[in-house]
């Protein structure tokens, strides 16, 4: 064995003599994009397979490959990788925003047809299949009452539960609560609907109702609050954990009792995040159809009383109108969907503003 083994030296990257490097001209990327689209259109229509969607998809792939090749040839490997990945990231962004933009556009283009006073001022009571009017007043009332009650139940419960877990809970009991909150996150809404149907509507409500089980908006609110609870607990918990320990210690060192420290220092610091979590849960609850259908029963007439008789909600209204055998109902469904989205949006913005008012301006 006479072969000498020369160890492969790992050299540091060579120092370039100049700081300047060759760059693709500025028009290269857009030109490549146009070229890629043209080639892909030629290919797709040449073999007569598929339509414009395939052209765009194939064009995007060709563009990525072409950009990498061109940059590799002119600018070198590192730069080519950089261009490739940033192009990929931007395409991912476009892909993600596309459905969202499409939903908003569809809502507005189809939802504005019935956006009139009649829609907001009347219910579906005595509206037949041939009547063009009719509205969602009863559904809006139902959604506001159900979500309002659900929020009133859930927020104190959820925030207190999160405070227990973060500030007081030690050992196995707190761990168990956390675990079951996590499990609750995964419960399908129809299951909470069935739970409230079995527990509240069929077992408890007959006590108040002369032995007859009764649908009500309150039952729907109960189901919604079961749905909202895990979201509120988990998001509040995360926000409370983000509050730095030195803030708590600073308050303790002033002789402030623990409960007051939590109330006056920890909660205000975490408030904006907590509000965001609550709004997310409200948005989710406002869009739920199944539990409302199961335990509030829906209904065509206006019912202000959430504790008695059937109530509808916007989500349920959309579901019912979308399946109705009337040429006027799809327009009502779209407008109700638009109303629901705008309602949630307004609530979210208002809550954010309120939470911000508590923070001091810089």
């Amino acid at each position, binding site marked *: 064995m006479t072969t000498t083994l020369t160890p492969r030296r790992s050299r540091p990257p060579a120092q370039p003599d100049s700081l300047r490097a060759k760059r693709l001209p500025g028009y290269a990327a857009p030109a490549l994009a146009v070229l890629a689209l043209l080639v892909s259109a030629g290919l797709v229509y040449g073999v007569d397979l598929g339509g414009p969607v395939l052209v765009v998809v194939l064009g995007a792939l060709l563009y990525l490959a072409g950009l990498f090749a061109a940059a590799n040839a002119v600018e070198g490997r590192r730069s080519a990788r950089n261009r490739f990945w940033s192009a990929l990231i931007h395409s991912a962004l476009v892909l993600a925003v596309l459905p969202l933009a499409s939903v908003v556009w569809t809502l507005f283009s189809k939802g504005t047809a019935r956006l009139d006073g009649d829609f907001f001022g009347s219910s579906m009571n005595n509206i037949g299949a041939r009547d063009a009017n009719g509205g969602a007043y009863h559904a809006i009332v139902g959604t506001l009452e159900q979500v309002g009650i659900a929020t009133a139940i859930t927020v104190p419960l959820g925030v207190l539960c999160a405070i227990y877990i973060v500030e007081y809970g030690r050992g196995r009991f707190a761990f168990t609560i956390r675990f079951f909150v996590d499990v609750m996150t995964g419960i399908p809404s129809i299951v909470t609907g069935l739970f409230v149907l079995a527990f509240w509507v069929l077992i408890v409500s007959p006590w108040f109702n002369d032995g007859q089980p009764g649908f009500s908006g309150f039952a729907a609110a109960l189901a919604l609050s079961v749905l909202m609870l895990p979201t509120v607990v988990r998001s509040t918990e995360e926000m409370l954990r983000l509050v730095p320990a030195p803030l708590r210690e*600073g308050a303790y060192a002033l002789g402030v009792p623990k409960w007051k420290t939590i109330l006056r220092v920890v909660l205000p610091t975490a408030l904006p995040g907590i509000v965001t979590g609550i709004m997310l849960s409200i948005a989710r609850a406002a869009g739920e159809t199944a539990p409302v259908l199961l335990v509030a029963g829906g209904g065509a007439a206006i019912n202000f009383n959430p504790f008695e008789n059937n109530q509808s909600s916007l989500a349920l209204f959309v579901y019912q109108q979308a399946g109705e055998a009337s040429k006027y109902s799809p327009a009502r469904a779209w407008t109700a969907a638009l109303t629901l989205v705008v309602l949630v949006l307004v609530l979210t913005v208002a809550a954010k503003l309120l939470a911000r008012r508590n923070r001091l301006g810089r």
Partner: protein
Amino acid sequence: MAKRIDATDVTAYYGGFKAIENINLTVEPKTVTALIGPSGCGKSTFLRSINRMHEVLPGARVEGSLTIDGQDVYDRDVDVTAVRRMIGMVFQRPNPFPTMSIFENVVAGLRLNGVRKKSILDEAAEKALRAANLWDEVKDRLGKPGAGLSGGQQQRLCIARTIAVEPQVVLMDEPCSALDPISTLAIEDLMFQLKDKFTIIIVTHNMQQAARVSDRTAFFSIEKTGDPGRLIEYDNTQKIFSNPSQKKTEDYITGRFG
């Protein structure tokens, strides 16, 4: 109103780990006492056990007796919040409450303990801010957030917040380690003034600072990592820095160790 502190056989644990063992120390009223020693030797742990902040961490506990003017702060029927009101604390990093203005930060201790009257709060805020040498810098922007001040100002704000509740003793846990030399000087000057009214105990890694500001110095050390910290020597600052009686102390302050 300053008070005397006696520690007898103070031993502190973090769960199963013994951080300090059998510390015996007496701090006279209206003095500045510096605690020095290498990292991990238990200076901060000892400091935090004086106002019962040590037990805030889960699993942490203290044995032995710690008295303030004869009252044991670890007695079963002692109210922790009363102890902490009597023994205030300034932390290593300035920690103003981010949701509160400068004014609200200073009076936080009073307000959260039930003082509502605006005139009392105004007066207390001005007094504390003047005592902390911060009044002139912030008097025109008391409504602005405390987190908007510079690091040195924030630390003086935290000192103002601490002395606004009029404690008897002020504990300082490396109060200048996050600050520049100018802010450090401002805080050292402040300690000289505060000495007239409060008993001050300061943990510091900066030996010049210990020599400058303190009347008495306690040197803590550990044998090796994992061992509990012990008090090696406690004497007048002059003596410790010129003619320490222990070899370890001398090695440490001359820079041969630690």
